[in-house]
């Protein structure tokens, strides 16, 4: 009982830092999806160089620990920028480095998800669309995309949850997010109530993950409902 009270108390102290997590996650999702779209397009492209580049990129990311990616971006980018563009970016908000690292990480699985979703609906549906006289763009936009979206959704949501969890490493380069905040609280209590603090931290992430899962299930259900009514 005592512990639950403590956890609730810590929840209150941690929650204000949630905006860092949200900003980092949302920006990386948006940027990562765009980059992922580019990669997916590169994989489908005529140019062999683009295709090879895209697949090497995706496979390297698959074997890269997130923490290493964050460190390499954080320590490498300022050096890279000053050497090549003579721009000093050391003063950047450290959050930007995390966003860039997560964008790079997120784009790889997302490109694969997009590609396989597109592949799963594309062929017959495109042909049918073209044969009823729609333009390729109309066919893509009105027929293929909505179907691919439904196919991709569960995997995409899964990747989003993973991204958010990887985002919990933001603290390692000194941004005060919820994890850093939790560590400070523990330090302030001279190491006391540590596990209760970290449980509060985990709870927050758990709730967000569950919410994303629930949201996806609802969207899927509404799509399935639509399908049924059309079929009937």
């Amino acid at each position: 009982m005592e512990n639950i009270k403590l956890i609730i108390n810590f929840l209150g102290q941690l929650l204000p830092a949630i905006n860092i997590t949200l900003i980092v996650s949302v920006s990386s999702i948006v940027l990562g999806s765009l980059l992922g779209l580019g990669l997916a397009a590169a994989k489908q492209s005529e140019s062999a160089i683009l295709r090879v580049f895209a697949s090497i990129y995706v496979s390297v990311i698959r074997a890269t620990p997130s923490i290493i990616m964050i460190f390499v971006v954080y320590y490498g980018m300022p050096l890279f920028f000053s050497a090549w563009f003579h721009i000093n970016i050391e003063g950047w908000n450290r959050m930007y480095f995390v966003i860039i690292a997560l964008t790079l990480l997120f784009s790889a699985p997302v490109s694969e998800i997009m590609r396989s979703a597109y592949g799963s609906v594309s062929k017959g549906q495109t042909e049918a669309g073209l044969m009823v006289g729609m333009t390729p763009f109309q066919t893509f936009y009105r027929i293929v995309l909505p179907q691919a979206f439904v196919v991709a959704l569960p995997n995409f949501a899964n990747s989003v949850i993973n991204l958010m969890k990887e985002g919990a490493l933001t603290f390692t380069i000194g941004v005060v997010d919820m994890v850093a905040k939790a560590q400070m609280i523990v330090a302030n209590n001279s190491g006391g109530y540590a596990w209760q603090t970290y449980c509060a931290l985990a709870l927050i992430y758990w709730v967000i993950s569950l919410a994303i899962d629930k949201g996806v299930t609802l969207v899927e259900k509404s799509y399935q409902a639509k399908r049924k009514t059309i079929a009937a």
Partner: protein
Amino acid sequence: MSLNTDFMVKVAHTAIQGVPVTLQIVLVALLISLPVGCLFALIRIYRIKGLEQIVKLYVSFVRGTPIIAQILIVYSAFPSLLNMIIGKAAFSINPIYYAYIVFTLNSIATLTEVFRSALQTVDKGQLEAGLMVGMRPRQIFWRIILPQALISALPNITNATLYLMKNSSLAFIMSVKDITAIAKTEAAFNYNFLEAYLVVWVYYLIICYSAEVIFYLLERYFSKYRRSTKKTTYFNWQPFSIKQPNVSAEAELTESGRGDHAQNRRIKKKL
């Protein structure tokens, strides 16, 4: 931009001592979590009252929270827990044991889901056929169902292993002397962090890629029964190509194909 290559060579030499540590963590976690994950999957499939809910909650928690939070919880809670049991000795335990605990607990959740879907891809007809030749359910599980499920789970087990290997790079937070920790200490002397992490990166690429090759060979060896005489599979030499868990899709395809066949024939018969 110039990299301190001498330093990189030096880090490569010292950090390699961390490779066995990383592999040890991965191996211990896998060896424990494979059977336990399988057991948990069975609990969920057979809906064992009470236990089912616990497993569900456990898997949901582990999958819904960052590994860093799990590390921090275990690392802060276990020493005092152990203190109650074995006294002061708890605080002098080699931290690698905490790494074993965290990564095992984490992998159990991942593998529970992997086995759950793999066991469900095995057709119910396999069980019925076993019953009709007089085998007992337990015999059918060990001799027919589990071997098939294990093989269809292999691609996802590969994924889970890579995930585990990558996550193990966070063991340094528990002051385990793994690759990352060693490189970090080396780098701190002269602030050569970029060089150090580039070396670590290469090590992870090598480790993960080796794991993928090993799993690929395993898959090839064990799935001989899946290959029809006509098509043979080749190793995809694109390094670390992302394997979608296509096993179930394949199974579904043949399943629906069969249904269609039957339906066609029924239609033919009617016509």
